């Protein structure tokens, strides 16, 4: 199937419009562990009320979503009631074992004025080849806030298809923090429907890719509501023969006056054998908006390198420090000490 399709196509020879993957579903879902705060209702299905009826598009695209939707696998749903501020995070750990194929389908609903933080950690028990499919659908009601932290710590034998879709009502806010620390092939998608006025999405992604690993990202902010806001901040490091493609789309639809969108990308390149592709789209059907994109792609700045050398740090060590800094800058946004320490420990192991 073809996934991670950009909303408007460009030259086919650039090979960025979409990507072909072979996907089939496992017979059963991956069992996972979780610590669920008492205010969170765990249910089977998409929650209740008007938000459950909303059809949510996802970043990996229609073909992948249809595959998931048409399966008989159950959806793990989580619902936060109105005016409920869940102080403790909902921890979830997905650990791939001997399965060659694994799948989880998750659905989160935060009702009006609710607040929830979810921390997902994706790991493996062994480094056998496997494909892991995950879909998260996020429903954020009026003035509610949902924070999703997702840390991926897979080896270079794992393929990971990671699909997000979100619908935000008036004043709703989604904060997505993703740390990508491995994987053989990783396909990340996010499609955010900023339906209600004043709704807001912020996605912060940090990655380090090495060996022959591949990371393909497709993030879309669909602005419909007035004064909506989107921010995509993506930073990372590429070394060896690693491949990264970031596609970010700010799509301003008619009527979203006062909307603001920004995409910022910072890529540190270490080896000449890397491939770094960036496709930042801004689509504008409304005059009273502001959309911006900025990208800085390259090696370490000479002045920074010189400064570090003057402090006794050689070039190799300087790059290692900066590689770590790229991850830390995003990891420090995670309001959970335990998760930050886990990332630090993992970085100590792989860098």
């Amino acid at each position, binding site marked *: 199937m073809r996934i991670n399709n950009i909303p408007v196509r460009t030259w*086919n020879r650039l090979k960025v419009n979409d990507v072909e993957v072979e996907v089939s579903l496992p017979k059963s879902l991956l069992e996972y562990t979780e610590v669920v705060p008492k205010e969170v209702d765990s249910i089977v299905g998409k929650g209740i009320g008007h938000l459950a009826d909303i059809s949510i598009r996802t970043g990996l695209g229609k073909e992948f979503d249809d595959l998931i939707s048409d399966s008989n696998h159950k959806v793990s749903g989580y619902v936060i009631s109105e005016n409920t501020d869940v102080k403790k995070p909902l921890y979830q750990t997905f650990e791939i074992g001997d399965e060659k194929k694994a799948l989880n389908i998750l659905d989160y609903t935060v009702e009006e004025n609710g607040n929830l933080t979810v921390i997902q950690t994706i790991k493996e028990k062994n480094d056998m080849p496997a494909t892991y499919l995950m879909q998260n659908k996020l429903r954020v009601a009026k003035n509610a806030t949902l924070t999703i932290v997702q840390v991926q710590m897979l080896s270079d034998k794992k393929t990971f298809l990671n699909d997000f879709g979100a619908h935000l009502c008036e004043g709703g806010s989604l904060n997505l923090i993703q740390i990508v620390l491995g994987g053989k092939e990783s396909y990340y998608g996010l499609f955010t429907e900023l339906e209600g006025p004043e709704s807001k999405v912020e996605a912060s992604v940090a990655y380090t890719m090495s060996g022959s690993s591949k990371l393909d990202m497709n993030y879309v902010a669909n602005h419909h509501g007035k004064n909506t806001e989107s921010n995509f901040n993506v930073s990372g490091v590429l070394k060896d023969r690693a491949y990264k493609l970031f596609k970010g789309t700010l799509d301003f639809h*008619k009527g979203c006056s006062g909307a603001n969108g920004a995409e910022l990308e910072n890529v540190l390149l270490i080896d000449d054998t890397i491939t770094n592709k960036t496709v930042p789209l801004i689509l504008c*059907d409304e*005059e009273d908006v502001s959309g911006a*994109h900025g990208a800085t*792609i390259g*090696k370490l700045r000479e002045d920074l390198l010189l400064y570090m050398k003057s402090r006794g740090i050689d070039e190799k060590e300087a790059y290692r420090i900066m590689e770590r800094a790229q991850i830390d800058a995003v990891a420090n946004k995670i309001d959970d000490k335990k998760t930050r320490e886990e990332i630090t420990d993992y970085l100590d192991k792989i860098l």
Partner: protein
Amino acid sequence: MKEKTQVNDIDRSFYDFRNEDADAFKVDAGLTKDIVLEISKEKNDPDWMRELRLKCLDIYNSMEVPDWGPSLDALDIDNIFTYVRPNMRGMQNDWENVPKDIKETFDRLGIPQAERKSLAGVGAQYDSEIVYHSIRDEAASKGVIYTDIESALKTEYADMIKERFMKVLPPTEHKFAALHGAVWSGGSFVYVPKGVKVDFPLQSYFRLNAKGAGQFEHTMIIVEEGASVHFIEGCSAPKYNVANLHVGAVELWVGKNATLRYSTIESWSKNMYNLNSKRAVVEEGGKIEWVSGSFGSHISYLYPMSVLNGKGARAEFTSVTFAGEGQNLDTGTKIVHNAEDTFSYVNTRSISKSGGINTFRSSVVIGPDAHGSKSSTSCESLMVDSISRSDTIPAMDVRCADADVGHEAKIGRISDETIFYLMSRGLSETEARALIVRGFADNVSKELPLEYAVEMNNLITIEMKGSIG
């Protein structure tokens, strides 16, 4: 109620006049092997050119229409006349020998006056044929060649043309490059010898008069080591209620430490499909400068490409695009860095109004050998009303760690902060807004010779009343 700024649509009346259809000859509408052979015969092609045309026709028939740009569904090649010869035989070097109606056309467009005032040479194409070419003695005496390709094919430059024709821009590049190869006619050949600096620009002007016709001119410019030249092309057509088609091809070679500036002021009528291709290959220390103003056409696909093959080669692309009612202009650039220490700079502006659609599309590729290369892109789009559309679709592909790539894109209306700043410096709100809108297209007009900058500014008549937004 806020009074909106009125940014006038392009005043096309200057270009919108037509001569009676008194063409001496035209092929049947459509595209068949017989039509291609008929054009080849009419052009008195050498054998290799006839074979190339037939090969291009096969490629055209085997390729798909692009699936990524503005719709071309309303363009039916079966209704296009691919070759229309005006009522004269042979290109003229004396303006007085050009037929009266054609001469009057170019007089009205100001071409002879421009030649006298500020050009080193001028070429004029009417429908499918070059009708006039001239070059100043001082340029000719330095060995500069400026003529039509058919004439050049009969000179010592024939082998040079054969060696290079459709090599930089091969017919396999896309369906319309193949179409061009099959039915091309007219265009210019420029050769600037080693070390020669041409002080005044050369200009070619393309006029398409015939209803339902296509224009397929081929431009080849070779600038040898250490030489420099500025080439300007202009184009216009009267408006008809059927589709006209422009599928030109421009192939440029910029030698070691040479400089070529290629400026275009495009004012095709709003029934025109402008599917033009332009490409430059730049050697060590050479520089290509594209300056582009796109104002006309119903639909445009236009992405001048720079291939930086030599160490230290440079490309600059500066453009302004104005899309008004009924226009869908998909424009941008492609740059390929193949050698170390190469540099590219892209600076584009677009204005959309009255339902016009602007798309900025670009591709910057830094190849594995392009160590120390730098690329910087800045594109800004201004939406003047709520019924227009503006998209930016850039792509960057970096295969080398030792490179520095920057990209900035902005879409939106004029910010209130900028207005407040200028007002704090003593300007009225109206003056501040007028200043910003007028200055928006300055990136291109300041790069043109004065006469052309004035012409371009005349194209955009901007009246400021109240506020934008």
